[in-house]
C-alpha cells in the first residue's frame, strides 16, 4: 500500500503500510459516508412501501366510514349494486361477477395467444424476426386503453353481432376479447423473457436426444421456465382484473349479477371511473362507495400476488 495522506505520494512510500491513526481516520470518514448513502438508498426503497401503506390507508379510512353505514355482510351477499339510487343497495357481487367474467374472457384470449407467441418468438422465430416483432408487440401494451374501448364498441362487437345477432350492443364478451388482446403483450413479453432465460445447455440436452423444436419447447423449455411464465400470467390476471377504460366503454355499465359473457355488466373498476366522471361530492356515501369498491379490487390483486409469490417459490428452478 502506497498511500499516505499527502495525496500523490505513490512513489514515496512503496509497499509501506499506512500509519494506524491515518488508517483509522480514513476508515471512519469512509464508513460514515457509506452509511449515509446506504440510508438514502434504503429511504428510496421504502417509498414503495409507503405507497402501499398510502393506498391501504386511503382505501381503508374511507371504507371504514362506508362500512359504518353498510354492513359488511350485506356488502358481501346482497346481489344488487345501486349505491347512488334513492333506495341504495350495496351488494358487491354484481360488480365482482362482472369483473371475474370479463377477466376470464380476457385471459382465455391472452393466455393461449400470449403463450403461443412467447414460445414462437423464443423457440421458433429467427433472432432478427424476434428483435423486430417484440418491440412492436410491446407497443400494443402502450396504446391508451380508451382507444381499445372504442375499438371494442365500434369494431369487435358489431363483428360479433354478425355471428350472434342476438348479442346486445354492450357485452362482456366483446370487452373481454379486446381486453385480452390488450393484455397479450404483458403475457408474451414476460413469458418470452422467462423462456429465453432457460440456459441453452438445457435445450441442447433435448435436441441432442433427437427432439424437435416443438417437443423441446413444450417438454423442456416451458417446464423449466414455469416460474417466470406463471409470473407473466399473474401479471396478466392483475391487469385484467384492474383494467378500466375498455370495460367502462364497451361492457355496458350495468351492475347485473350474471356470469354470462353475452350480457352487459359492470366491473369494479368501471364503477369507480363512472363515479369519478360524475358529480359525486367528496364525503358522501357514494363517494365512500368507490373506496370500498377500490378496496375489494386491491384485496383481489393482493391475494393474487401473494398466491403468485408462493407459486413462484414453489416452481422456481435451479437450472
Amino acid at each position, binding site marked *: 500500500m502506497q498511500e499516505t495522506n499527502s495525496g500523490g505520494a505513490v512513489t514515496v512510500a512503496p509497499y509501506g503500510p499506512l500509519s494506524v491513526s491515518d488508517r483509522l481516520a480514513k476508515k471512519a470518514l469512509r464508513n460514515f459516508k457509506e452509511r449515509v448513502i446506504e440510508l438514502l438508498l434504503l429511504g428510496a426503497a421504502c417509498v414503495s412501501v409507503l405507497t402501499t401503506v398510502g*393506498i391501504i390507508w386511503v382505501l381503508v379510512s374511507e371504507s371504514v366510514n362506508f362500512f359504518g353505514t353498510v354492513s359488511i355482510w350485506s356488502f358481501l351477499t346482497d346481489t344488487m349494486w345501486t349505491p347512488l339510487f334513492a333506495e341504495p343497495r350495496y351488494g358487491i357481487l354484481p360488480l365482482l361477477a362482472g369483473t371475474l367474467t370479463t377477466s376470464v374472457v380476457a385471459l382465455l384470449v391472452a393466455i393461449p395467444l400470449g403463450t403461443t407467441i412467447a414460445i414462437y418468438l423464443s423457440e421458433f422465430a429467427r433472432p432478427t424476426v424476434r428483435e423486430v416483432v417484440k418491440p412492436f408487440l410491446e407497443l400494443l401494451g402502450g396504446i391508451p386503453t380508451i382507444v381499445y374501448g372504442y375499438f371494442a364498441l365500434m369494431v369487435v362487437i358489431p363483428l360479433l353481432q354478425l355471428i350472434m345477432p342476438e348479442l346486445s350492443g354492450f357485452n362482456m364478451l366483446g370487452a373481454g376479447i379486446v381486453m385480452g388482446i390488450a393484455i397479450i403483450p404483458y403475457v408474451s413479453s414476460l413469458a418470452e423473457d422467462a423462456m429465453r432465460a432457460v440456459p441453452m445447455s438445457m435445450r441442447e440436452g433435448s435436441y441432442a436426444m433427437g427432439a424437435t423444436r416443438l417437443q423441446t419447447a413444450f417438454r423442456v423449455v416451458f417446464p423449466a421456465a414455469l416460474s417466470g411464465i406463471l409470473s407473466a400470467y399473474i401479471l396478466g390476471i392483475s391487469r385484467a382484473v384492474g383494467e*378500466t377504460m375498455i370495460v367502462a366503454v364497451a361492457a355496458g355499465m350495468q351492475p347485473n349479477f350474471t356470469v354470462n359473457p353475452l350480457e352487459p355488466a359492470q366491473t369494479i373498476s368501471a364503477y369507480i371511473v363512472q363515479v369519478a366522471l360524475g358529480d359525486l361530492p367528496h364525503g358522501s356515501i357514494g363517494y365512500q362507495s368507490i373506496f370500498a369498491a377500490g378496496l375489494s379490487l386491491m384485496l383481489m390483486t393482493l391475494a393474487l400476488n401473494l398466491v403468485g409469490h408462493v407459486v413462484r417459490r414453489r416452481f422456481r428452478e435451479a437450472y
Partner: protein
Amino acid sequence: MKAEDIPLIRKIIRRNKRLEVLFAVAGFLALLLGVLTFVALFAQMAVAGWERISPDFFTNFPSRRAGQAGILSAWVGSLLVMLVTAVSAVPLGVAAGIYLEEYAPKNLFTDIIEINVTNLAGVPSIVYGLLALGVFVYTFGFGQSILSAGLTLGLLILPVVIVATRESIRSIPLHIREAAYGLGATRWQVTRDHIVPYSLPGIMTGVIIGMSRAIGETAPIITIGALTFIAFLPESPIGPEFPWVNFEWLKSGFTVMPIQMFNWTSRPEEAFQQNAAAAGFILVLMTLAMNAVSIWIRYHVRKDIKW
C-alpha cells in the same frame, strides 16, 4: 436405435414434424393477430383523423368548434406531467433498485419490500387514482394540478423502474463486481463507478417503457378530476429572473392527451370524433417514438458494454 431402424426413425420424425409445422403456423397467426390489431388500430385512427392533422392542430387550444380545436394545452400538459413523473420516479426507482440489488441484506424487511414491489406492479391504475385523490388532492392539498398528476403517474411507474433497474443490475456479471472490490473499492464506489454506468442503458429502456405506459393512462387522471376545459398554458417553467426557474406551473390546472381524446369522444358532434382519432394517432406516435428511442438505446448503447 439401430441403423436397421432408420425407416422407423424417419416415420417418427415425419409425425413429430407435422405437429411442429402446425404449431409454427399457429404461432405465426397469433403473432399476426397481435401485429395486425396494432396496425388496424393505428391505421383506423390515421385514416379517421388525417384531415385534422396540420400545424394548427398542434398550436390551437381546444374549442367547441371541432374544426378549430387543437391539442396545444394537451400536449404541453402531457409533457409537463411526464417531466414531473420522470423527476419523481427515476431517482427513487433507481435508488430503490440499487438498494435491493446491491445493499439489501436478506431479511424479512427486504423480503417485504420485494413482495411489495411485485405487488405494486399488479395494482390496477385506477387504485392509484384513488390514492392520489385521497392523498395528493385532498390531504396534501395539491388539488387537480400537474404536480398531483405527475406524482400519481410517478408512483404508478415506480415498480416498472425498480424492476428494470434490478434486472439490469443483475445482468452485470459477478466477476466485474469482484474485480472492483478486489482493488479495494467501497460499496458506493463500486455502485457509482460500475453498477450505475453499466446498467444505465437497461434502466433507461425500463424508464421509457414505464413513461410510454404513463403517457396513455386515462383512468387515474380522470379519478383525480382533471376532466377540465383548459385553453391556456401553464406558467413557463423558465422564470424571468434568477434562478430562472419557476415552480408556478406545478400548481396549474392542466389537461393531457388521453383526457383530451376522451373528452372529444364524448362530444355529441361527429366532427369531434375526427379530432379524437387525430389526437389518438398523435398519442400513439408519441409512444411509438418513445419506444423507438428505447430500442435504439438497447441496440446502440448497450452494444458498447461487453463483458
